[in-house]
């Protein structure tokens, strides 16, 4: 809501500066901001009167003006086409710096001295208009600073209304709030009407077919108005809050809307056929053309105002072009109604059309304010456009809206706020709010809410009124807090955070990727699940919830690579969704950990050479995570998938844990235009967080020394390290503690064996120092097995 401070003063005394008003209204819950003007505080631009305009001797398009600034007469060269004798204009004096940055210096323009500049609006930063100089009202006092002069028209205040306060979408509503602060009176303008002898019933009848959508409809008819431009005060008032002046009748309706907050509509009576207004629901598919020129197809949810033959307005939202006020209009039908908020809301949403009227109706207009608003507009139209008012009002209000009594218990107020407030102050506050006090005793106040406050329906609503007017800062904060000891452990949260910090400690940077992705990304992955689709996406690029974290990770890598950040170690912990018709929310959500590496692993450093990313770096991450989260081991399974060059599935505790892989280079090139290898893993976090792991158990440290032996063998090409390790373990005897693979060599070949493995074996007994002979025996068994079972050859 836009408020003009000058306009506001019509309804109550406002003993605050605009800045104070902003602060005070904000403290009442009406978040306000004074609009800054570029001329605020500007000095050196004054109101000047143009005394005389002469042609410039040396230039056709320039003129030389003599202007009066009160203290002096100056000679000004001006290039504007609209400058004329007798105008009041803003004049920038020499030395002034204008809001656009220009500083005025004494200059000669084509040989004539100019002692200042008459300004256009763009030079003052007021608008972009450079078509001519700005002209001021004739009553502007010569010599006054322009900033001071413009201030006289009031400041503009933007009030950001919460949806519960439709009453404040008006100057009177805001003025009523001001009276809560000042204790001064609210002055509601009188609406004197001189009626003619012709009864309104001769001209119009109203029938409400849908009383749910339209509980009340009132109308008047004015005959013989003269449509003309609005008087200056009216046009200026509307302009001061950013509305365009149209003509006297339309402007009057807009003025009363902004004054009272009650939306009104004016019809050209000529085009209301059959002397009849019918309020009904639209037929499915009915088509109308609204005032803004748009053709709109309606549904049954839209309420229509019709004459005897056809629709003339979309109720509470917008009039139709067929009955709008025209320059030649002479008779006006005024509508003042109360429409059901939900009905208007549905219609407005369906049409995608929010207007000043629909905004107020859908939040709740004042059903008892219908007649005042009607009379106020009638009176104003007669004042600005003439005409004769037909006698009487048509007022259809079949079932008056009853407001029930509300009992507000003082104990409840004090209990909820933890403070005692003077009951007299509270009662007076409720009265100032417009409530009707039915009864009051030391325990409670029984009251009926004002009809313009649809938000006050319960006791707690009045407690809120007490808090906001009493002042939230005046309610002391508790100095001791109630704390509830927790016995339940935050297992899941703590485990997820442990996972996050552990992966971070491996040297990975955490990213947050968008959860909303394009359709193509949802086909990626090992077993892509049916994704969840949005009904109203921002764009097709964000039409699905992600069903894998990996495409988002590749996209993040892509952005980095484009910016020459080639060395990447990224991770994300986030949810993925898949369709699940059995779920209450139709979706199954799984928390995942994704990790991506590409490029060099270590930051380039003078002390060591770099390491390239590979799949085993990520496999190592998985192995370490499994150990840290208390699992004994994982099973790795080789898999095939079109998106991956190599893919290893991971199973833990017989549950699918995730996978690690190298993205297929062809897919990377074609779909992402990435030429560098990318390795990823995606794990199901809940496997780590939902299984209670046994507490860590300590193993006694060995007392007796261990014996280490190395074994190097040439092996067939297709023999895996895994199988070799198994064989060594199987034959290594009871004292073999560890088998560490530590070298893979493929330089030359021996007996057609092209690669070589080296293992480091650790032997140890718990109860004594092992003898070399015992280890020799075990080594011999290992050698035999490697040679005979695996066709390996000792190096």
């Amino acid at each position, binding site marked *: 809501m836009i408020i003009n401070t000058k306009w506001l003063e019509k309804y109550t005394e406002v003993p605050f500066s605009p800045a104070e008003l902003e602060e005070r209204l904000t*403290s009442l819950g009406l*978040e306000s901001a004074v609009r800054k003007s570029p001329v605020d505080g500007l000095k050196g631009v004054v109101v000047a009167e143009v005394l005389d305009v002469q042609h410039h001797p040396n230039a056709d398009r320039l003129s030389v003006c003599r202007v009066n600034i009160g203290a002096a007469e100056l000679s000004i060269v001006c290039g504007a086409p609209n400058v004329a004798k007798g105008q009041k204009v803003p004049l920038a004096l020499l030395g002034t710096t204008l809001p656009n940055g220009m500083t005025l210096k004494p200059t000669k323009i084509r040989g004539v001295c100019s002692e200042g500049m008459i300004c256009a609006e763009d030079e003052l930063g007021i608008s972009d208009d450079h078509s001519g100089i700005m002209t001021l009202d004739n009553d502007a006092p010569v010599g006054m600073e322009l900033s001071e002069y413009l201030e006289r028209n009031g400041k503009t205040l933007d009030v950001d209304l919460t*949806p519960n306060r439709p009453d404040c979408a008006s100057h009177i509503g805001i003025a009523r709030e001001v009276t809560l602060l000042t204790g001064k009176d609210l002055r509601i303008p009188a609406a004197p009407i001189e009626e003619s002898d012709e009864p309104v019933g001769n001209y119009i009848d109203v029938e409400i077919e849908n009383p749910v959508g339209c509980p009340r409809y009132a109308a008047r008819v004015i005959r013989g108005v003269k449509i003309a431009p609005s008087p200056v005060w009216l046009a200026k008032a509307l302009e001061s809050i950013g509305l365009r002046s149209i003509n006297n009748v339309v402007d009057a309706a807009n003025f009363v809307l902004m004054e009272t907050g009650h939306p009104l509509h004016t019809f050209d009576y000529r085009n209301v056929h059959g002397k009849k207004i019918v309020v009904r629901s639209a037929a499915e598919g009915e088509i109308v053309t609204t005032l803004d020129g748009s053709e709109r197809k309606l549904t049954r949810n839209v309420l229509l105002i019709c004459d005897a033959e056809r629709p003339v307005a979309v109720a509470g939202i917008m009039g139709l072009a067929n009955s709008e006020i025209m320059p030649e209009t002479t008779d006006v039908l005024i509508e003042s109604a109360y429409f059901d908020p*939900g009905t208007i*809301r549905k219609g407005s949403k369906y049409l995608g059309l929010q207007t000043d009227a629909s905004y107020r109706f859908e939040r709740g207009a004042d059903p008892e304010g219908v007649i005042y608003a009607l009379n106020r507009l009638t009176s104003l139209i007669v004042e600005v456009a003439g005409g004769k008012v037909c006698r009487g009002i048509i007022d259809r209000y079949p079932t008056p809206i009853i407001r029930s009594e509300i009992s507000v218990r003082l104990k409840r107020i004090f*209990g*909820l*706020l*933890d*403070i005692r407030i003077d009951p007299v102050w509270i009662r007076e506050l409720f009265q100032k709010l417009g409530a009707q006090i039915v009864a009051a005793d030391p325990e409670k106040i029984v009251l009926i809410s004002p009809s313009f406050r649809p938000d006050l329906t319960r006791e*707690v*609503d009045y407690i*809120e009124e007490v*808090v*906001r007017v009493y002042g*939230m*800062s005046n*309610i002391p*904060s*508790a100095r001791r*807090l*109630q704390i*509830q*000891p*927790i016995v339940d452990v*935050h297992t*899941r*949260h703590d485990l997820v*955070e442990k996972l996050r910090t552990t*992966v971070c*400690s491996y*040297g*990975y*940077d*955490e*990213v*947050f*990727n968008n959860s*909303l992705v394009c359709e193509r990304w949802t086909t990626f992955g090992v077993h892509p699940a049916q994704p969840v*689709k*949005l*009904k*109203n996406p*921002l764009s097709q690029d*964000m039409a699905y*919830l992600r069903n894998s974290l990996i495409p988002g990770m590749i996209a*993040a890598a892509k*952005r980095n690579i484009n*910016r020459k*950040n080639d060395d990447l170690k*990224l*991770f994300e912990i986030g*949810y993925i*969704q898949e369709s699940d018709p059995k779920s209450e*929310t*139709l*979706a199954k959500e799984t928390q995942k950990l994704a990790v991506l590496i590409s490029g060099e692993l270590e*930051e380039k*450093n*003078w002390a060591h050479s770099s390491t390239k990313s590979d799949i085993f770096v990520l496999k190592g991450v998985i192995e370490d995570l499994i150990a840290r989260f208390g699992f004994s081991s994982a099973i790795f399974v080789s898999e095939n998938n079109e998106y991956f060059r190599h893919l290893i599935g991971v199973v833990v505790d017989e549950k699918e844990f995730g996978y690690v892989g190298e993205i297929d280079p062809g897919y990377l090139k074609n779909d992402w235009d990435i030429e560098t290898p990318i390795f990823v893993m995606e794990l199901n976090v809940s496997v780590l967080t939902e299984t209670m792991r046994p507490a860590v158990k300590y193993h006694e440290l060995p007392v007796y020394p261990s014996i280490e032996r190395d074994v190097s063998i040439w092996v067939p090409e297709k023999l895996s390290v895994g199988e070799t390790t198994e064989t060594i373990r199987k034959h290594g005897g009871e004292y073999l503690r560890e088998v560490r693979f530590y070298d893979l060599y493929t330089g030359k070949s021996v007996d057609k064996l092209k690669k070589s493995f080296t293992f480091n074996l650790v032997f140890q007994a718990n109860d004594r120092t092992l003898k070399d002979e015992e280890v020799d025996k075990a080594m011999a068994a290992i050698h035999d097995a490697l040679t005979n079972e695996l066709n390996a050859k000792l190096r």
Partner: protein
Amino acid sequence: MNLLERAEEVRLQLKNDLAQVGSDLPSVENFRIKFLGKKGIIPALFSEFATLSNDAKRQFGKTLNELKNEAEHAVNSLQERLNKQETDSEFFDFTLPGKTPSLGHLHPVTQTLNRITDIFREIGFQIEYGPEVETDYHNFQALNIPENHPARDMQDTFYIDDSIVLRTHTSPIQVRTMLKSKPPIRILAPGRVYRNEAINARSYCLFHQIEGLYVDEHVTFAELKGTIEYFAKRFFGKNVIIRFRPSFFPFTEPSAEVDVSCYLCGAKGCRVCKHTGWLEIMGCGMVDPAVFAEVGIDPEKYTGYAFGMGADRIALQKYGIDDIRLFFDGDVRFLKQF
């Protein structure tokens, strides 16, 4: 003078000479030769010692050995000192860059969420989660936001179908918790929430909210204020001023917005606080009786408060970031700053 007295004399001489010996190689060598050389003072004593009777040997042996050890120790330390001098004169480039440990970085929003979570956990709040895809009932209706209510305009919503939405706030977790447990309830609910808003520097289609709820007998507005002030001073610094402004949320009443004095400029006015001296940090209020009625908690017996804030927005303020899209871009040059 017997051997014992002479040995004592040599010990004194050794001490004297040691104090005066020069720190160059010839001086140290001369010192060594004087006391320990083949014809030095101490071997001379040992030669004499060899001529003694076994009884006398027993008497003097220990003393002589001690003297010898003392001299050897003195020579060793003199030689070490010489070695060290030599090393010290080699060029040592202390300006070589340190070998930085390569740790990763947690996302700034994670860090903000963790800090908030820690502060509230210290006063007994327990973490709860809820789904990102929510029913209209949990996200809106149970929170006193009926269909066709203008309050729905406060949150532009993504729909899956007519009754399923992407949650627009973490408040449905309140509803789920109150439906499944009885007061006292004291929870903190972090999570990703979605808004159908155009993406630009100021807004993104999702962000991370964290929400608190406390329901018990005698929970008051004063308690809410005290709790929020505790949090704000812990999070933003003990000198910040906290301001409560009346506001409106359908699920709380009375409702308030909370501002803290701008901790970046000391409330003098800066770009981040838009020269107002205040930063808006959260919304809060007393749980609306309509919400209690919906979840089956007796509003006459119990009261409660709720609060919620956007971790992304707080992180933007705290680090002076002016484009929220940076949080979701994954640029490592950005991430490594936190």
